């Protein structure tokens, strides 16, 4: 019953831990991964260099990584903004779907008439509104009835998935391509509704990623510099102190969740506008951007700027994983390597807040 070590809460969190722990976590993951690779008869150095090559070396690899990173950047920001206030929004996944639904609708309706710039704006706004409102439901439930937002937001992911299936597979909805009788699929948005790519130094950067950078910076300013950010910080620190200072806790909860959902929704819009060009029910559900976004945010320690970088890191690893996969390299092994990185990162997070002490004949105090 008595463990030889115990965790002790750190009184102070030294600044250097903020970068030291992620770095050490990554190294730990590489070491653990090396053991797994050795056990399966692979040369870890060889595998790691291939991962680096496919994920990050050269303009082609980087272009791919940024593309994969884009939806993760949005869902990462979605998680980060809510988690910072202590609201565990697991619903980025569903909010992402809803954003895609809203943006596809806007693209289909206005794509034929409006100029490209205007269509992009309408799609983005439509995606944000849909994702935001969907998350606001969770916020209202939490603020008014004190329901657990983890559970409601998670449940609403399943609802959103069913809704997607309904739109594409089980109905002749506006989103479904009427010509796809045997293989139901989404209706492609007009070309004019396609979002642009830009080339910077040979790297192809989707418009959506630029928007993500702007969004990340905006959130950083919002939380660091504005009254609203100050209020969110106080609520996260102590809800009682917030009440004492006259901060409106309930409306702030709803607003933060709506913002969080709007970011995921914007990601959904980007998915349609910049990449898929239609509402791809199956593709969205298989990607699991919302869930990966939580990991991205956690790795970035909820910092919106770091979230962008971590998204690219995870994007690169994902792409490299696809590249590695083959007859001699099962996808399970790729998953294991990725899982190890996430596992050590989350484990490392504990060490930021706690330190490990050895238990000397501990007095196991029971509270």
């Amino acid at each position, binding site marked *: 019953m008595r463990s030889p070590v115990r965790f002790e809460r750190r009184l102070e969190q030294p600044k250097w831990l903020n970068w030291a722990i992620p770095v050490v976590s990554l190294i730990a993951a590489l070491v653990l991964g090396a053991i797994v690779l050795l056990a399966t008869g692979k040369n870890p150095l060889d595998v790691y260099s291939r991962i680096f090559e496919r994920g990050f070396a050269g303009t082609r690899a980087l272009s791919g990584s940024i593309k994969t990173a884009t939806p993760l950047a949005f869902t990462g920001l979605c998680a980060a903004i809510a988690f910072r206030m202590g609201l565990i929004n697991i619903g980025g996944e569903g909010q992402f779907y809803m954003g895609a639904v809203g943006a596809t609708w806007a693209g289909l309706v206005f794509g034929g008439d409006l100029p490209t710039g205007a269509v992009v704006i309408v799609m983005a706004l439509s995606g944000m509104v849909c994702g935001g409102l969907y998350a606001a439901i969770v916020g209202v439930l939490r603020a008014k009835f004190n329901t657990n937002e983890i559970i409601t937001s998670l449940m609403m992911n399943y609802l959103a998935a069913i809704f997607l299936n309904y739109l594409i597979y089980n109905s002749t909805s506006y989103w479904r391509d009427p010509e796809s009788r045997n293989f139901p699929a989404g209706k492609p948005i007009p070309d004019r509704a396609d979002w642009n790519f830009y080339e910077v130094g040979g790297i192809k950067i989707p418009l959506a990623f630029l928007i993500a950078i702007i969004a990340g910076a905006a959130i950083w300013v919002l939380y660091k510099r504005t009254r609203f950010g100050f209020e969110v910080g*106080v609520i996260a*620190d102590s809800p009682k102190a917030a009440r004492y*200072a006259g901060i409106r806790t309930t409306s702030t909860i709803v607003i933060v969740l709506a913002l969080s959902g709007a970011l995921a929704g914007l990601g959904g819009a980007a998915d349609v506008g910049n990449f898929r060009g239609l509402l791809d029910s199956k593709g969205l559900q298989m990607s699991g951007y919302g869930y990966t976004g939580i990991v991205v945010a956690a790795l970035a320690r909820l910092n919106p700027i770091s979230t962008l970088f971590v998204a690219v890191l995870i994007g690169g690893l994902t792409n490299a994983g696809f590249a590695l996969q083959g007859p001699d390299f099962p996808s399970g092994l790729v998953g294991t390597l990725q899982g190890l990185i996430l596992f050590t990162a989350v484990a490392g997070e504990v060490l930021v807040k706690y330190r490990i002490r050895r238990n000397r004949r501990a007095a196991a*105090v029971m509270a």
Partner: protein
Amino acid sequence: MTSAVRMTGIVKRFPGVVANDGVDVDIRAGEVHALLGENGAGKSTLSNILTGLYRPDEGTVEINGQAMQFSSPRDALDAGIGMVHQHFRLVSTFTVAENVVLGEPDSPFMMDQSRVAQQVEELSNRYGLAVDPSARIWQLSVGEQQRVEIIKVLYRGAKVLILDEPTAVLTPIEADALFKTLRAMVAEGRTVIFISHKLDEVMKVSDRVTVLRGGKTVGTVETANTNTRELASLMVGRSVEFNRVTRSNPADVSHTVLTLSGVSARDDRGRDALHGVSLTVGRGEIVGVAGVAGNGQRELAEAISGMRALSSGHIDVSGERVQSGRARSAIAKGVAHIPEDRLHTGLASSHSVEDNLALKNYRSSSLSKFRVLRRKAIRAQATDLVQNYDVKTPDTVTPVRLLSGGNVQKVLLAREFSSLPKVLIAASPTRGLDVGAIETVRARLVEAAERGVGILLISEDLDEIMSLADRIVVMYEGRLVDEVAAEAADRERLGLTMGGSTVSGGAR
């Protein structure tokens, strides 16, 4: 006469506080022994030492004449000491029987429901602790839950039972039933340690009383040879010197700055905590609210500062109505508040000193423009206040939780006083502070009163109230039960009314 428990010279220090400062208690086997004292007198610390939660810094604990050193509650339990906590430790979705065996060291993997149920029933019959073993905790009343706690302790074979403020959650009828149970237990040779600050109760149930004050034993008396009056004066202390602070600028009672009219409010659990409280505070007047903690003082402070909605009545500040349950409205009307729980209510403790100093006025135009914070102005304000209020902090970006208790309070005072309030609610403003800090805080309060601030000083420290207040009201069970001018205040009478005795019926 054998001693069931003898604690000698117990000293327990916490950072900045000496909770027990040489406590001696001698508890005989087979008696109900009351530990009487105000909050902060050291009762809880003492019982935590006896149950193995804390280790004393000095002093010895003897059980049945044998010196003991507990390193965990398990050790204390093995020595036959069980505690019934004020806040129950029950799993609400489990049955009574399940809760009773929960945490048993050698409970089998599969529980023998019927056997446990039978034992629970046996115990409950023997001591008049009526409770259904198969009921789930959430279905039970608070009184029944307490019985489960007692059965739990008895089931573990405790010979000495410690009950911490057991009647705080009970109705009078339930309390009487509890007293019967306690008598039944001592009749069987068990020993009961009854922690309370309620005089009548102590008189009713105990055989002997040990009074604690300020972490020290004041004395032990036979209940039969004493009365509530004597206990009250022992509890609050009559020998302590105190000086009325002389004021250059006396209170102006003709101008009321704070008026409470029939204010009622509920506590966090939804029970009525304030019953039609009416009260006025004049310009520059300090009104002391005396009372033992938990009699509605917190709710009173929160109601005035807008943190708690009123269920009836209203509050006016200088003739202007404060919106019920709107802290922002109270702040705007000029209500400052030094809450009891400084680190989690008065301050956002992980935030920096400068953020905390701006906690109430960050919305003002001087500190934010177009909803964007003016960081420089916030820092400048902080630098100013830190200097004026002599806050010892390395810089203004240090989180307040890293400051010492006295400096934490100074941050709070700096913010609240600098807002130039009309009314100040100060709840236990000096609790836990060292002598120097106490003096600073008191001086600041008097200074504010001289500037015309109406102050409501809520404190359990009678000396503090008597030396600072112009007028004293006593709060008991959510009502104001007594009011006296400070010069005419009589410590004994205050002690009695604080303990719930009516003034006329005090003598026994």
